């Protein structure tokens, strides 16, 4: 496309309408994606502030910065905000909303008004949780274990639980919308096996959302009701069982970690293909591994309860099943690596995040296998080893993928480029800061430092100082994109429809896309990632 066309004033989804109402009442999936982007970014900052306070407290061995009670509230609210208000919605609600219809060549999601509703539901639920925070906080841990959460805790469990319950419906509606859209609204020629892998990941994630989230909802409602009316479902005095809560909770919350990681894996597939100019090695395996993860993910919840009073045989079965669920993840890592091999790799910002993802996710996943081994888990459970493990997955994996996707699609969403050099610096700083923060925690956990304590014996200090130092480096790594991405909105160079020379329907429409995504319904004639055809034509 020549430059003077670009300079012409053009109607797109951002300037089609103006004013607050045009945003708050929009049914355009792209605008709704941006609404989510704004909300979850604020929640991320909030969760980050809690994280910073946790790390500051742990700088010194005695509990000198905050009281034990405050510390309990800090890590609880850090967990709640990061998991339910940032990570779970992040990629589906922002990039999924924005790109699922575009990538299949549709004009919108199947249920646009339901989509808007899901943002409102999310915000209402978020308000409840924020209310719980400002009126004194919650101290149960993000897992709300009974009987503490139903009987002993005097904190704001009700409000937080209600908030999480409500936000759950937002996930359910988004998931439902994606599944229906992918089934019924693909453009002519867009067969299932021509779909970009990001869509397979979104599909699998939506399945988990649709089947898992209701179980969490009913569990959380039971906790609230039990607090209010002494139902007895979890209360041994009435013959109830506190372990039932853990079973129900982890039946959702283990699959929920895949709600957080699968979308990132989808993004990484896009990035690896685009920046190594190759078709993803073993496309069908990668596609089906997403479904396999979604299905197997429901069978392994018991590995969170090895020391909670489970029969040895039960524990053995869950241990074995947990090993099985690692297989499809390993398939993906293997296929990405094979794709990189002999590709013409270029190291632009999104690619650096993708490579960071692969490294960190691999470490997180391998340590997950340690934890799934009964004997080792008994040694390191509830220590910093676990904290390090899930942060490698959730921050090193899910968050890196999110940032990679944000950089990759930013030009499409806004029509502007950001300074790639700064992007690369930010990616490297984040990667280094991340490892400095969380690697020492593996050692701390192995040496026996328990999680969720606000004070610790002096011999653990050196590693904790490293970790806190790393957290500040990582904080800078997150601050930088916030600055240059904002900067790019006004000063960034015009991106053009396809700044990366990437494949995929989203790159065939102008940046930013028009309100109905395409000026003409696209017809798909080739598989996803047909990069080799480009090269053949050039040769």
């Amino acid at each position, binding site marked *: 496309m020549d430059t003077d066309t670009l300079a012409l004033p053009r109607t797109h989804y951002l300037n089609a309408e103006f004013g607050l109402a045009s945003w708050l009442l929009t049914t355009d999936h792209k605008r709704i994606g941006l609404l989510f982007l704004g909300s979850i970014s604020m929640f991320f900052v909030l969760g980050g502030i809690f994280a910073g306070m946790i790390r500051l407290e742990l700088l010194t061995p005695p509990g000198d910065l905050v009281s034990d009670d405050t510390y309990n509230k800090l890590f609880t609210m850090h967990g709640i905000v990061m998991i339910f208000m940032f990570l779970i919605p992040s990629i589906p609600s922002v990039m999924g909303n924005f790109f699922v219809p575009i990538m299949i060549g549709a004009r919108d999601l199947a249920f646009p008004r339901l989509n808007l509703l899901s943002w409102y539901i999310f915000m209402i639920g978020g308000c409840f949780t924020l209310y719980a925070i400002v009126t004194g906080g919650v101290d149960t841990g993000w897992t709300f274990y009974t009987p503490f959460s139903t009987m002993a805790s005097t904190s704001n469990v009700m409000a937080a639980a209600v908030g999480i319950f409500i936000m759950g419906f937002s996930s359910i509606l988004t998931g439902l919308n994606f599944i229906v859209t992918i089934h019924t609204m693909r453009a002519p020629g867009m067969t299932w096996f021509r779909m970009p892998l990001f869509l397979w990941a979104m599909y699998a994630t939506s399945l988990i959302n649709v089947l898992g989230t209701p*179980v969490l909802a009913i*569990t959380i409602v039971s906790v609230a009701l039990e607090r209010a009316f002494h139902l007895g479902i979890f209360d041994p005095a009435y013959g109830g069982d506190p372990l039932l809560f853990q079973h129900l909770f982890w039946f959702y919350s283990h699959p929920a970690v895949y709600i957080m990681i699968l979308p990132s894996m989808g993004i990484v597939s896009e990035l690896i293909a685009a920046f190594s100019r190759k078709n993803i090695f073993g496309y069908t395996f990668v596609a089906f591994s997403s479904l396999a993860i979604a299905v197997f993910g429901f069978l392994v919840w018991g590995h969170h309860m090895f020391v909670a009073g489970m029969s040895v045989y039960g524990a053995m079965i869950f241990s074995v099943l947990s090993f099985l669920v690692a297989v499809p993840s390993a398939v993906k890592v293997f296929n990405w690596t094979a794709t990189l091999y002999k590709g013409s790799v270029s190291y632009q910002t999104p690619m650096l995040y993708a490579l960071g993802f692969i490294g960190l996710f691999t470490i997180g996943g391998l340590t997950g296998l340690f934890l799934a081994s009964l004997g080792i888990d008994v040694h390191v459970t509830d220590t910093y080893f676990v904290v390090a493990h899930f942060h490698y997955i959730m921050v090193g994996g899910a968050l890196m993928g999110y940032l990679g996707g944000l950089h990759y699609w930013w030009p499409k969403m806004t029509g502007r480029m950001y300074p790639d050099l700064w992007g690369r610096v930010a990616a490297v700083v984040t990667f280094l800061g991340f490892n400095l923060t969380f690697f020492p925690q593996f050692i701390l956990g192995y040496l026996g430092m328990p999680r969720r304590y606000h004070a610790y014996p002096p011999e653990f200090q050196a590693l904790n100082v490293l970790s806190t130092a790393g957290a500040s480096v990582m904080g800078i790594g997150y601050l930088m994109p916030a600055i240059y991405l904002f900067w790019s909105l006004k000063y960034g160079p015009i991106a053009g429809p396809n700044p990366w020379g990437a494949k995929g329907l989203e790159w065939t429409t102008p940046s930013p896309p028009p309100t109905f995504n395409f000026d003409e319904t696209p017809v798909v004639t080739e598989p996803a990632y047909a990069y080799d055809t480009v090269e053949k034509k050039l040769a």
Partner: protein
Amino acid sequence: MPKHESSSALVPDENAAPASDPALRHHFDDLAQQHEAATLGMWLFLATEVMFFGGLFSAYMIYRVWYPGTWGDASRTLDITLGTVNTIVLITSSLTMALAVHAAATNERRKVMSFLVVTMVLGVAFLGIKSFEYYQKFAEHHVPGLDFRFEGQAPERANLFFSLYFAMTGLHALHMIIGLGILSVILYMAWRGRFTEAWHTPVEISGLYWHFVDIIWIFLFPLLYLVDRHR
């Protein structure tokens, strides 16, 4: 992209089927696609509902296996006559709902409306009988948390039975109330003559929802009322 096209971004593209039917939403190509999407959406929603109730059902099953004695005692206090009547009322309402959907397919507006009204009346009757049962439980001090008393073995565990009884039937009743709300909207739309032979998807998918709620009851009734009747 030709330059003069740029202003047309707001209009759906011309390749789409002509918007023949006012019921066709802008982002679908045709009514068939729109119908398929709505139906699949409802089935998925019902799948989430199965999981939602599933948590309570599994809790109920586990405790039933653990405490068969208490469960029998507590179950025998429920009014089986009212329960049976309610079951019949609800199955009949499923029938009239199905007839309403059929009438919509053949575009008989009056029939759609009258079958919907009958369905709703039956639904209200169900809720009325259910409230009467709740009132009885209240009078017998069988409501957990409100001066709960129970004569029989292990009264404290009976509390658990009645908790689950109220949670499950309460959730079911809530679904009935939502269903009545949906049916009133459908009734209004039918009255306004919104449905045609080509497009009556809302009647169909609310029918699905109504049948689903009935099916939940078909499981609740034996589990709650008929448990250990023979002893």
